[in-house]
């Protein structure tokens, strides 16, 4: 270690005693446990992880809180309770926990979450206190609380007694790490915080949401999927032939949608999208060549179903499925897709099949020209998606 001795000014008048005093100060500084920890604000994070419940995590200098170091001090040594703070800082976790338990009622009286004007009843769930570690550094402990969350709560206010110091209030969106609100309020009380979109939805609401998303992905958004289903319908308006194809298609796309969402199968849209277009062309062309349900047709439709499922997975990945509602969201999306396909078939049947399917010119005048049109559009999309 190199010491570059400073050129000290004004030392000529320094007395020997003065220097001695300095040494004593230095020695006592070297061996006394006195610490000065700059006080950082407590960080309160509210999680809405389950319907009807909320969790509050307070990340805080517990010693400063229990010792009542108080606000307005840059660091702990500035407080009249600095000695108490230092003693607490030297305590092992269990001993500090015991001190905290005695202090807990005071803490619960000084903090609060107010929902639509009603104070929520906070209960301390657990306290995590790190080991003593390096006493030159502040120790940050975590106190976790829980409280009931009324389903219709839409405004929240955070209260942190000014005597405890400053605090940051943050809201995390249900079952994610995403911080959707954060503020560093002055004067111990936050602005009213709107909870819209932050609190978790009920399982029924999530199911309904994804059902609608699934349906809308086919009707009206998924013209290619609509044309494919129309292609299946045009082969023959007889119910049993339709049933075989639709069942195969549904089974297949359910499998790849789930596998795609789980990340097991991932194929680039650059490959999937042109193939979906090609599948439309295929069914339409086959419709023009035959009106019989060939043995390979359900197998081929099944394979195309696998492709369409990957396409659905691409869309659903973009929308996102929260981990807390993965299965119900997936099932709801699938059912939505199914309902939309059935709606397309129902529309075809009501619009055309019901009236003309028994006519001898049905195939010549309707099925073949319509299939040709579908094949043309499919080819156009194929070219568009390849280049």
């Amino acid at each position, binding site marked *: *270690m*190199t*010491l*570059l*001795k*400073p*050129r*000290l*000014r*004004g*030392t000529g*008048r*320094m007395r*020997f005693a003065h*220097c*001695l*005093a*300095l*040494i004593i*100060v*230095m*020695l006592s*500084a*070297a*061996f006394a446990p006195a610490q*000065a*920890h*700059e006080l*950082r*604000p407590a*960080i309160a994070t509210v999680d809405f992880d389950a319907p009807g419940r909320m969790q509050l995590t307070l990340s805080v200098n517990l010693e400063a809180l229990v010792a009542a170091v108080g606000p307005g001090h*840059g*660091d702990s040594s*500035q407080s009249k309770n600095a000695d108490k703070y230092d003693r607490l800082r030297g305590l092992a976790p269990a001993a500090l926990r015991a001190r905290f338990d005695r202090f807990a009622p005071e803490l619960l009286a000084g903090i609060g979450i107010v929902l639509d004007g009603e104070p929520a009843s906070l209960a301390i769930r657990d306290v995590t206190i790190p080991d003593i570690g*390096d006493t*030159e*550094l*502040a120790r940050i402990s975590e106190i976790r609380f829980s409280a009931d969350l009324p389903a219709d709560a839409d405004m929240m206010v955070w209260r942190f007694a000014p005597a405890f110091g400053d605090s*940051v209030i*943050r809201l995390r969106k249900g079952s994610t790490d995403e*911080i959707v609100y*954060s*503020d*560093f309020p*002055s004067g111990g009380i936050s602005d009213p915080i709107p909870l819209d979109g932050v609190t978790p939805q009920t399982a029924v609401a999530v199911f309904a949401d994804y059902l609608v998303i699934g349906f809308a992905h086919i009707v009206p958004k998924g013209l290619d999927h609509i044309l494919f289903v129309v292609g299946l319908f045009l082969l023959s308006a007889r119910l049993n032939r339709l049933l075989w194809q639709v069942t195969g298609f549904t089974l297949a796309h359910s499998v790849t949608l789930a596998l795609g969402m789980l990340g097991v199968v991932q194929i680039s849209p650059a490959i999937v999208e042109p193939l979906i277009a090609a599948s439309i062309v295929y069914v339409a062309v086959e419709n023009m060549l035959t009106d019989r349900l060939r043995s390979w047709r359900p197998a081929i439709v099944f394979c195309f179903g696998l492709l369409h499922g990957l396409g659905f997975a691409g869309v659903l990945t973009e929308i996102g499925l929260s981990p807390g509602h993965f299965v119900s969201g997936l099932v709801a999306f699938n059912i939505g897709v199914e309902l939309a396909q059935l709606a397309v078939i129902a529309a075809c049947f009501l619009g055309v099949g019901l009236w003309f399917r028994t006519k001898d010119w049905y195939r010549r005048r309707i099925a073949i020209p319509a299939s040709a049109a579908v094949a043309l559009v499919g080819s156009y999309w194929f070219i568009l998606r390849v280049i």
Partner: protein
Amino acid sequence: MPRVKIRHLRYNLLAAVNRGLLFSLVLVLGVISGQAAAHEFWIEPESHRVAPGEAIRADLKVGKMLKGDYFPYLKKRFLSYRVTVGARTVDVQNYEGASPSLDITADQPGLRIITYHSTADRLVYRDWQKFLTYAEQEGMMWAVEAHKARGLPESGFSEIYSRGAKALVQVGKADAADRDRAVGLPLELIAGENPFADKTPTELPVQLLWRGQPIGDTQISIFRNNGTITRQIVRTDATGRAMIPLNGGGRFLLNAIHLQPVAASDAKDDWESHWASLTFAVTAKSQ
């Protein structure tokens, strides 16, 4: 008469030797114990060298001997918090209470000059010795004399202080354009060369500016962590310059303080200080 003179001389000599020894001892103790009177404030990047496309993350730290408590991002606690690269300067954005305080993506290569200018805080001295230790450790003993000359009390006086911190982070390979520069902190340390340059210098020239003008005769504390944490001190010359020895590499924190009396008699505070820190890292030279 001659005898008296000789005795005086011997006394002075002895006193001088004593003083020298004592001051060395004081300094050594200060170094060993790490009990600096005041706390440094610095920006501590996770890494000082980052590849383009990677994240630059940094904590704000307060502590002694390069060991400190981290502080989250709090808008109310700073006047400015910026990243400068070349001619472009952007404000650091984050959410309240975020830590690490700085979390950005290094999109383009180039030297990042990260600066933070805190709001002012007040320190009330209840203990005269605390001020003495502070003045001694920071090489500002003149302030002790000045304090007495101003007739100020030995306890219950106050100092208002604000912090200016700077950290250098090199994104990609350093080129000639990657230079530290003055970005407008009240007291500012400026690296005269890029510490991340290919040819690692054995010492780094720095300059200290006070309100944009070079300031001489001011102590710079050099904290270095290369496995062990050490402290050295140098003083700026008349042009505000000093040389920082870099041999052995490691993470460096330079700290300087400009302390001045608050002149107005109706002022709430007796002293006003501005702190400047500069952090960077140097790879140890492979021999």
